[in-house]
């Protein structure tokens, strides 16, 4: 993975740029000592790191605007950062960039239950948005697994999903409005408490633009009344194919579970060893969760049970208590930690049509054998968003390279069967060079034109999303 060489003229102006930033910001908002900027050298894609020129931590939209106007004038690239939990390297710096972190902007600005929205600053963590409204019976639906730490601003940049988006959608479906600062410092309000922003759907294209169009400082989010209850059922199968068919049948039958999670044997074994959730030793396991009143849950689970029984499950365990529900989810929720204990791993995020599930799982198995690297699969089966985890040993020479090559092959397979490179993590630097697998030069050109409009100088997070050779002329201009 390459990053553009830093601009020497920016590096040579570091002292002046930092002085100018200090002059417009409170004393503690500018960090430039190498020991202190280390925290900003990388995000959750820790394989790649680079010290930034400086990091700034504004507290207000006005400060963000002042920072961007200054950097715009100086021609300095800016990399926006939420909580730094990106698995795709979305917040990876270059040596000539300023990291703009919104973590200090974490307030709740307005809560409105009659109109069902909350307005927050962009640095507020995902889980604490729900935390602000749950005592009153509401929640914010998108629930990425990093929700304890990840910031709403980062969620908007990546259009984050989560386990429950089969029913509730992803960030873009729950975002009503933003305050966004463009690279030239101008502050725009888009959308708000009403349902459609009006005019062209700029909000829709800002969400998921990976911090390349502007810096979101405030967001109006849709909140929903909490369901009366929720309960999962765990179903074990003797093959991936059968489990995949069962997923399809459940969806066709007209039940809309809030989540359908899938784990294959390597993942089940690792989770069981780690969390001791009492999972059966089988080839494939589904966790299906439904919501509603007790009676509604019973009715839906009865239907799911009937469908599952047609596929000869080796285990079918309906939760009958809060305690049992927790145990069923325990293994799934600790999957990444469990595998992390055994191995280094790389987590992929391709999405495939649900119908291609059995074929893709078989092909991943074959590829895994030919590369000599184990792959564990755990994913959101209802919407086809896979998370193959490639296990490797970072200390073994060549293993990371082989792992990345296998990862690229798996993602190409996802695209071949009609899917995409990333379902919820974003492109960042990680999948940047695979974009031509999914898009023609014209497809990418259309996207680049949008960036041209929002950020004509290409200063915001410029080395991400698109292959460097595709953007080089624009970045150099």
């Amino acid at each position: 993975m390459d990053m553009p060489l830093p601009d020497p003229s920016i590096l040579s102006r570091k002292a002046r740029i930092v002085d100018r930033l200090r002059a417009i910001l409170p004393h503690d908002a500018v960090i430039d000592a190498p020991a202190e900027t280390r925290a900003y050298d990388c995000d959750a894609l820790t394989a790649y790191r680079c010290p930034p020129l400086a990091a700034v931590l504004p507290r207000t939209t006005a400060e963000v605007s002042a920072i961007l106007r200054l950097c715009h004038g100086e021609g300095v690239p800016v990399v926006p950062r939420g909580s730094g939990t990106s698995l795709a390297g979305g917040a990876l710096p270059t040596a000539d960039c300023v990291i703009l972190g919104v973590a200090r902007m974490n307030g709740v600005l307005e809560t409105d239950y009659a109109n069902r929205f909350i307005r927050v600053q962009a640095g507020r963590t995902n889980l604490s948005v729900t935390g602000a409204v749950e005592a009153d019976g509401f929640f914010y639906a998108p629930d990425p697994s990093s929700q304890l730490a990840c910031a709403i601003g980062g969620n908007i940049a990546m259009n984050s999903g989560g386990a429950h988006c089969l029913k509730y959608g992803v960030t873009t479906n729950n975002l009503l409005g933003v305050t966004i600062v463009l690279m030239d410092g101008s502050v725009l309000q888009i959308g708000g408490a009403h349902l459609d922003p009006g005019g062209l759907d700029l909000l829709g294209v800002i969400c998921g633009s990976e911090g390349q169009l502007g810096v979101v400082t405030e967001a109006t989010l849709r909140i929903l009344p909490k369901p009366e209850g929720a309960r999962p059922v765990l179903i074990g199968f003797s093959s991936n194919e059968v489990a995949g068919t069962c997923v399809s049948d459940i969806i066709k039958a007209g039940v809309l579970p809030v989540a359908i999670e899938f784990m294959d044997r390597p993942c089940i074994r690792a989770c069981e060893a780690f969390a001791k959730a009492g999972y059966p030793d089988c080839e494939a396991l589904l966790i299906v969760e439904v919501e509603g009143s007790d009676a509604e849950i019973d009715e839906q689970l009865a239907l799911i049970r009937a469908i599952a029984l047609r596929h000869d499950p080796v285990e079918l365990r309906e939760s009958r208590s809060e305690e049992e529900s927790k145990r069923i989810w325990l293994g799934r929720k600790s999957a990444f930690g469990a595998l992390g204990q055994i191995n280094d791993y790389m987590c992929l995020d391709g999405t495939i049509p649900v119908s291609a599930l059995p074929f893709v799982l078989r092909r991943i198995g074959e590829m895994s054998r030919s590369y000599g690297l184990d792959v564990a699969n755990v994913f959101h089966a209802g919407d086809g968003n896979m998370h193959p985890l490639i296990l490797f040993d970072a200390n073994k020479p060549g293993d990371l390279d082989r792992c990345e090559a296998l990862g690229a092959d798996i993602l190409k397979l996802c695209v071949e069967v009609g899917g995409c490179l990333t379902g919820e993590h974003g492109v960042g630097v990680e999948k940047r060079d695979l974009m031509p697998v999914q898009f023609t030069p014209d497809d990418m050109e259309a996207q680049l034109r949008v960036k041209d409009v929002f950020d004509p100088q290409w200063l915001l997070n410029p080395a991400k999303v698109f292959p460097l050779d595709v953007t080089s002329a624009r970045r150099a201009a």
Partner: protein
Amino acid sequence: MMTLRPGGEAGLSALLRDRTEPLRVIGGATRVLWFGGAADLLDCTALSGITLYEPGALTLVAGAGTPLAGVERVLAAEGQRLPFEVPDLRGLLGTAGVSTLGGVVAANASGPRRLQAGACRDSLIGLRFVDGTGMAVKTGGRVMKNVTGYDLVKLLAGSHGTLGVLTEVSFKLLPVPGASATLVLRGLDDASAVQAMAAALGSPFEVTGAAHWPGEGTFLRIEGFAESVVYRGGRLARLLAPFGSADMLDGEDTARQWQAIRDVAPFHGRPGDVWKLSVKPSDAPGLVARLAADGVLYDWGGGLVWVRTAPGADLRARLGAFEGHATLIRADAPVTPVFQPQPAPLAALAAALRRKFDPRGILNPGLMG
């Protein structure tokens, strides 16, 4: 005036590459507003046909010119539907024609279920279009979760043909629930009705429609499995007891009632201009009071207000400053822009995007600004 009717994406691309004169882009022309001058028609109805339908994956891909009605029949045969309840505006606008998927997407046409299932753009998972230079572009795909590259799907949805001409669209579908029912509260004034709808929408009983038809009633729809609908209907009626006792409509009456609301039936055959307001629901009754309207219909819990006024009335002047926007849906003469003028910085961004995708200004010029 000529009608051009390209038979495929390549033909459309060649046509647009060489075109220098304005075009009015149409599907079935059932929901199009046009106050521009005379222009050749670009008729997209030949870009027709379902290319992929996988009920087990809740996914449909079809040509942009595919008639909506045919698609709805195919989906219904598998017990599925487009989630966002597409309005049929022919009765309101006095148009004939056959609505197409491309037209639905271009208008981001979304009915009463929008408040629970999202708008058209929320179910739209991919599309292909040809921009004003003839460049064919794919964005999104056929899977529900996809964050690969910028989401031009959203940008194109609701762009009314001004950024490009749609050739293919992909939707996420939902199963049709087995049962539905509607609670009706009678005799509420607008403000109480909006409060009642807010109480219902803030409950865990999954209301999929909340509309207030002054003089007729305040309507709250529930859908799902039969027993669950009965249960939630009962709980909802108890919750709303402070607003009066509720009648209950069964499934058949529910379908009829919501079709009438979806298609703005109270304004059919009635004179005057028609406007559509998108507002913060609790603001709606106060805004309506400023309008001297001849007729009003509240949908989306008050977030959408259909307004009928005397011809030529400048509704935006009467509204003054408010959070939201007003769109002119039906009028005899172009007294005012169809779409709410935006603040200068937003308008500048939108204009710059249009110049990028349609540098010669040939696609529905002037329609959106």
